[in-house]
């Protein structure tokens, strides 16, 4: 998990006056385009058109951009938490479950209290989501510390449980009677996130994400808590020697990550669906991990990484609609792109095992 990308990779030969990783990146991009071109040709479509539709699908119009931003929001929010956890070597892969619980709690708040003032309404639902995520994550942290169960396992298993909890809730007390799909009743207007740009679907969630990223960066680098987390992540023994409490640091970082994931869930509910629907969190958790690691666990870098994911998705999906390639091809293209970007970034990583 070590991703201290701080130090620049050494320049191998004077001929390469450039950061070697630059070449790698260029190569990776070229390779990526090449591979995807072949795949696209294989289904009888024209790669250039495909690329154009991807680009247009991602950035073609203000509206397209807003979709990408909305898509990126949960990845960024949840990714920030993941990056902090991984920094502290607390391998929390419970993002999906925390998002699900967050969405559930936010919905519950929204459906239980008919608050008129939108600001208060949204605020309280968001807090509900945050609290839910925090509690769910802290629970995982508690089991991990209390019983010494590896955190990866606890969070993984609790993902399954969380998703089933949401299903159960939708099937029983929070579900909409007679709906054709497991979903809650619609949220009232005052519980819907205001639009950032009128006439588009871009809701204010992205602002939360940006602010959170900046705050997280500040916490990590400018506070003694962040320092403690970094030490804790670098060496458990050093953390002990420094007198940090393993319990507090672990629960603390888990709770923070859970809160952010919970907020992401609340935002998906209040900003996208206006209701809780089954499987709304599907895959978000793992994407968030990918985003955080792609960002080399730097909270601020989670923003570009998250946007990369968001726009890659909107773009490739637009391509799927425009030139009718199978969705599987889209997934392949996303996978290939990611692997190549990773390989390119590898050059930035410090070498040496220990």
């Amino acid at each position, binding site marked *: 998990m070590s991703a201290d990308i701080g130090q620049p990779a050494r320049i191998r030969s004077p001929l390469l006056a450039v950061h070697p990783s630059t070449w790698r990146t260029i190569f990776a991009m070229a390779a990526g385009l090449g591979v995807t071109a072949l795949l696209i040709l294989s289904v009888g479509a024209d790669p250039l058109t495909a690329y154009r539709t991807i680009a247009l699908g991602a950035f073609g119009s203000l509206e397209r951009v807003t979709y990408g931003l909305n898509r990126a929001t949960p990845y960024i929010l949840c990714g920030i938490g993941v990056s902090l956890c991984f920094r502290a070597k607390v391998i929390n892969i419970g993002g999906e479950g925390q998002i699900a619980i967050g969405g559930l709690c936010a919905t519950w708040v929204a459906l239980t209290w008919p608050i008129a003032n939108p600001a208060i309404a949204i605020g309280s639902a968001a807090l509900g989501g945050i609290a839910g995520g925090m509690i769910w994550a802290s629970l995982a942290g508690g089991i991990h510390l209390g019983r010494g169960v590896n955190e990866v396992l606890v969070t993984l298993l609790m993902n399954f449980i969380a998703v089933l909890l949401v299903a159960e809730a939708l099937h029983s007390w929070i579900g909409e009677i007679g709906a054709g799909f497991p979903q809650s009743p619609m949220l009232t207007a005052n519980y819907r996130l205001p639009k950032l740009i009128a006439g588009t679907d871009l809701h204010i969630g992205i602002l939360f994400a940006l602010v959170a990223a900046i705050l997280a960066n500040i916490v990590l680098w*400018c506070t003694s808590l962040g320092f403690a987390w970094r030490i804790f992540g670098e060496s458990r023994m050093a953390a002990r*020697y420094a007198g940090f409490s393993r319990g507090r640091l672990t629960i603390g970082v888990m709770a923070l990550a859970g809160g952010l994931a919970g907020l992401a869930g609340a935002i998906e509910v209040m900003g996208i669906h206006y209701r809780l629907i089954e499987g709304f969190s599907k895959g978000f958790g793992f994407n968030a991990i990918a985003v955080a690691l792609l960002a080399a666990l730097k909270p601020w870098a989670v923003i570009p990484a998250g946007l990369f994911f968001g726009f890659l998705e909107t773009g490739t999906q637009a391509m799927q609609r425009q030139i009718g390639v199978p969705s599987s091809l889209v997934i392949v293209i996303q996978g290939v792109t990611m692997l190549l970007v990773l390989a390119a970034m590898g050059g930035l990583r410090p070498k040496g095992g220990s």
Partner: protein
Amino acid sequence: MAGDSIPLLEMRGIVKQYGSVAANAGIDLTVSAGSVVGLLGENGSGKSTLMKILFGMVRADSGTMIFKGRELSGHSPRAAIGAGIGMIHQHFMLVEAMTITENVILSLGPAGRRLRKREVSRLVRETSERYGLDLDPFAVVGNLSLGRRQRVEIVKALMRGAELLILDEPTSNLSPPEVDRLLSVIRRLRAEGKAIIFISHKLGEVLEICDQIVVLRDGSVVGHSESDACTRVGLASLMVGRELDEVFERSTASPGLKLLELHNVSVPAAPGGSGLSDITFSVRSGEILAIAGIDGNGQLELAETIAGLRPAKVGTIELAGTDITNTGVADRIATGLSYIPADRIGTSLVPSMTIGENLMLRDSHRAPFSVHGWLNSSALDDNAHGAISAFGIRAPSPNISTKRLSGGNQQKIVVARELARAPKVLIAVQATWGLDPGATQFILDRLLRLRNDGAAIVYISSELEEVLALGDRIGVMFDGRIAGIMSRADADVTRIGMMMGGLETQSSVEEIRA
């Protein structure tokens, strides 16, 4: 004279640049078969780097190496081993999760493939017994003390065998008797016509064992001569580049009130370690209690228990009158307890973090480093610059990660941090481990100053010299107990030696309580 025979190894113009640091600035080194070459130099002068290059762990920027008439170019440890070069690394290359036997098998390379575990463990036992290194082949390395790990490295090297053996500070963690045994081993190897490169900061050893001595400073050779033409003082000043007065000043102690008191402290033994049984002693303000003992007799446990890293199951610990038996590490730091552990990498230092950050490792949540939880970066920088100049830490900037520092310089950071707190009580374990004479003296100096300023110091070391030089009272640990504590006046080496060996224990409790 060994020097006249055709050289086994010739290194010419070795250059290795680390960023702005010239670790090796064009070094020539010649070693002939059947001779021991001593490599001396301050911390950070480039010894380990040169050796790592020779062994293929690090690639030189330029320079040539000719071994047995063949040029070693772009080679790896595998090639080096193949060519007949062996190395004991300053920072151990051991797999902690594995047993000693498994580590040895690994080190044997392809040769180990055919060997059975049973045979190897037998060999390990034999070898360690023959050289008096006392190792349990089935012990898991992770549970071993530094001293034992050092022995494992030696056994590895001996069993692999090599025509040229590189020993990078092999004695740093050994007790005097172990050192003697190692030296006799080296003599035997030399007699067998093997060549040895011997790195140490202990001039006595070097003069005793080496045929030639090469002195490095700032990555270049500043002196090269037959050892019998050298004197301690001469070498020391050659290394440091200035005169070093050999014996250092120490005013007599003026003990004040008791700052640290242990009453019947007992701790159960952790796997592979020793426990503590019924430890009782006290240290007064302005007093140094130096504790000798063969590594692994509970010194580590004692230090950790006082520092708060191990709960004391039985007994009480008082710091300046307040009972700290059940308080955590942080509280003990706050009440003025400093701790310099033996284990540098990963415990007292975080290698991947910067010098500045490491210097505030244990005070990060206190002023000046942070106010209301906000880190104060200027305080961090000032502190770092201050420490770097005050302790002469060799580093281009306070913002480089400490893993780029030489062993000695790393230790200076730890000492700087723990002294900066102006502690009431200091627990120091092997504080001068791996430090060059200049640095060693510098640090012992600082400890004495701290004592003169009224702190109580517990100095734990397996180096008798140091213990005797430093302690106002001398204690000896054996098998998790205090075998005895005597005042500086009536400390005599043979008696201490007996105690260290568990052959004598002191009966009169009064003397302990004194």
